[in-house]
């Protein structure tokens, strides 16, 4: 009968499903992991998620940069360079560089901020 799936077809479906799962897990945003990293690194001491502290709120950052080209790369560079940031009273401080050296974790953190 034509309706019966052959072993070869079944194998092909399995491979396709596995490929979809792998690709989706690689690009999926780990929000809980990103928030945990933000706490660990002390990011949330200066940035609130939805309220401004010494630094702008993450939701404010997301609204400003979401959808803009290359923003992810620019924000990653901002985080890793430790360049000076200006405070309300006019003085400047070096932005904290995360202790983690895992680029995937930092990328996930930026993606989480932009998703807010």
């Amino acid at each position: 009968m034509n309706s019966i799936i052959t072993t070869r077809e079944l194998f092909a479906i399995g491979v396709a499903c596995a490929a979809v799962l792998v690709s989706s897990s690689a690009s999926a945003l780990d929000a809980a992991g990103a928030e945990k990293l933000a706490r660990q690194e002390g990011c949330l001491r200066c940035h609130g998620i939805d309220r401004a502290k010494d630094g702008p709120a993450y939701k404010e950052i997301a609204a400003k940069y979401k959808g803009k080209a290359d923003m992810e790369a620019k924000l990653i560079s901002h985080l890793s360079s430790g360049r000076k940031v200006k405070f309300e009273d006019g003085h400047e401080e070096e932005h904290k560089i995360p202790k983690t050296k895992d680029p995937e974790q930092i990328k996930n953190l930026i993606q989480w901020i932009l998703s807010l």
Partner: protein
Amino acid sequence: MKYWQRIAASLALLAGMTGMAPAFAADNGKQEQIEKSQAQDAICTRCHDHNEQKPVLSIHKTAHGVKADGRTPTCQSCHGTSEDHVKNSTNASERPAVDRFGPKAKSDRPKDVQACVACHNSGKRSHWQGSAHEKADVVCTNCHQMHTQNDRVRNKATQPEVCFACHKEQRAQYTRPSRHPIKEGKMACSDCHNPHGSAGPTLMLRDSVTATCYTCHMEKRGPFVRSHQPVQEDCSICHNPHGTTTPNLLKARPPFLCQQCHEPSTHQGRNASLTGTATGANTLARGCLNCHTNIHGTNNPANINNERTMRR
């Protein structure tokens, strides 16, 4: 209402209000103190809020955080004003550390202790200087957790685990078959030891091992007509209080324990037997305590053979 009744009521009201005035004034003073304390805390909680990895705001659920009590500290009372940290004087990526209780060199540890001792200065801590813990560079926060409602070392059930983090030999001993009821939560290390320092050996709660043991085992204290000398000297000559594999927390099984002091000149040296003469009998197995039942001391006035028999 009659005229004189009105006068009396007005006077009573006036007297009542005069009496209440100091109470209001006191309330205002307290409110002022609370607001001042909260303003001090706000300098820190502006950044260190509920988003901290280790909870800091939970200190307000502890005795340290009772703002209505004028004796309780603000963040600055313990951590110092830490102006360099607050202002980030270096403008660098990493702020300078706080004045106290921060990641600092060993030489700064006494300052951390002083921050606590400034308030906690009762007689229970008067032997801290020179104590074993002080000499080993232990500071208060090695054992105590300030920002949590449940300080593990002050809870009888969880305290031993805090001590065992360093005292690993005792961790092994307290699981042995003959032991004090520490696992059951009926006793904790601080029932016998004062970790803040003491005049006795091994941070004993009292001035000696015997005095500490006698607080519970008072029937062993005496005075007795016939004393067994080690009982008066140091219980740990025969017992290991942390746990052993021999009944009654004994360090070894009689007769071997007894024969460590009592040389084999009398019946201890004979072949083990359950029969025979008084000097040769009853040396088999745990024979010593079969006859010498009152080993901690006896009040038996009879002089049976000699005065050191510790028999009933």
